[in-house]
C-alpha cells in the first residue's frame, strides 16, 4: 500500500526579500516547519523569482547536491572553480558541493524576472571533490513523455549527482496518461506540478502542488489539462 504526502501550493513557506520571492516546499532559512523538513533525501525545493539585475552574491556550499532548473529567464553563474555560465530555460545545472564551493547567481536581465527551481539533495558520499555541470535539454522531447534530466550515472541521460536519484520532466496534453516505474526499491517520488492540473495515483493536483508517494513501484499519471510535471525520485532513507 503506497504512502503519500500532499503539499498544496498555498501551504508552502514564503520568503520575500524584495529582490527575491521564494516559495519553499520544505523548511529553509528562517522558514521552519518540523512537519515539512524533507522528502527522503530531497531536502530543498525552492520556487524562486529573482528581480531584474539582482541575485545571490558569492556564498558557499558544501556536502550537498544542488540542482537548478530555470523556468523563465536566464541565470548567470560564477564559481571559484572558474566556471562562468548562463543557464537558460531548458537547461539543468548541477553542483556537487562536496568539500566546498563558492558561487554567485544573478539575473542578467535588466528588464525581466528570472524564475527557477533550486533543489537540494543530500549526497550519498560526503567530502567529494566539488564539481559543476550543466546541460541543455531539448524541451520538445518532453512532449507527452517523461524525459530524464538527472540520474546517479554519468553514462545515463541528463546530469548526474552523488545520490540514487532520478529526475524527469514532462509536458503533457490534456487527457494523456502514462505510468512511471520507480528505478529502485526504497525510493519514493516527489511530483511537483509546474503548470496545469494532473492526477497522480488518484490524487488530484493543481499548479505548484507537491505530492510525495512511496512504498510503491509505479505511479499512474493523468494530465487533467495541459500540464508540465517534474518528478524527483529519491531514496527515502540514507
Amino acid at each position, binding site marked *: 500500500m503506497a504512502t503519500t504526502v500532499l503539499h498544496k501550493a498555498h501551504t508552502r513557506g514564503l520568503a520575500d526579500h524584495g529582490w527575491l520571492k521564494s516559495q519553499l516546499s520544505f523548511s529553509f532559512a528562517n522558514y521552519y516547519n518540523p512537519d515539512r523538513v524533507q522528502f527522503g533525501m530531497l531536502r530543498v525545493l525552492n520556487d524562486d523569482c529573482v528581480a531584474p539585475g539582482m541575485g545571490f552574491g558569492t556564498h558557499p556550499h*558544501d556536502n550537498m547536491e544542488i540542482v537548478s532548473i530555470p523556468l523563465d529567464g536566464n541565470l548567470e553563474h560564477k564559481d571559484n572553480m572558474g566556471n562562468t555560465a548562463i543557464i537558460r530555460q531548458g537547461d539543468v545545472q548541477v553542483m556537487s*558541493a562536496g568539500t566546498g564551493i563558492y558561487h554567485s547567481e544573478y539575473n542578467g536581465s535588466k528588464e525581466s524576472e528570472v524564475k527557477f527551481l533550486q533543489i537540494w539533495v543530500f549526497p550519498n558520499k560526503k567530502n567529494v571533490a566539488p564539481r559543476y555541470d550543466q546541460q541543455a535539454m531539448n524541451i520538445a522531447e518532453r512532449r507527452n513523455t517523461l524525459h530524464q534530466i538527472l540520474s546517479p550515472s554519468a553514462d545515463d541521460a541528463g546530469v548526474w549527482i552523488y545520490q540514487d536519484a532520478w529526475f524527469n520532466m514532462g509536458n503533457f496534453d490534456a487527457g494523456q496518461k502514462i505510468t512511471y516505474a520507480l528505478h529502485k526499491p526504497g525510493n519514493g517520488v516527489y511530483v511537483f506540478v509546474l503548470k496545469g492540473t494532473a492526477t497522480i495515483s488518484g490524487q488530484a493536483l493543481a499548479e505548484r502542488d507537491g505530492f510525495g508517494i512511496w512504498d510503491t513501484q509505479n505511479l499512474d499519471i493523468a494530465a487533467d489539462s495541459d500540464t508540465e510535471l517534474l518528478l524527483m525520485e529519491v531514496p527515502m532513507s540514507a
Partner: protein
Amino acid sequence: MSSPLPILAIGKHAQILQTVVGLLNKNPAWQGYGAEDVPTALHLLQQVHPALVLFTNGLCQAEEAEITQKAKELQPAPILLQHYGGGGGLLTNEIWAALDAAQV
C-alpha cells in the same frame, strides 16, 4: 536574559567555517566558535563546553569519531549534528530541529 548558547562548528574549509561561525553569531541567542582541526576542536570542547557541535566538512571518519568520543565524555554532553549545505540555507533549521528534539 540567558547567556548565548555556545555552538562549536568544526570543518576544514576555512572560508566556509568562517561563514558558518559568522552566521551563528548573527543570532544573539547563539555564540559561535570554529575549529579547523582536531586539536583545536578538542581544546574548544573543554574550554567552551558547547551545547551543540556542528560537523561541517572535510573531516575523515577517524577525526569525527575522536571528536565525538571526547564530546560524549562531557557532562552534559553536547548535541552532535551534521551540517549540510555550507551556509545559511539549512544552518538555522538544523539547529532549531536539534534543539526541538532535545527540548533545550
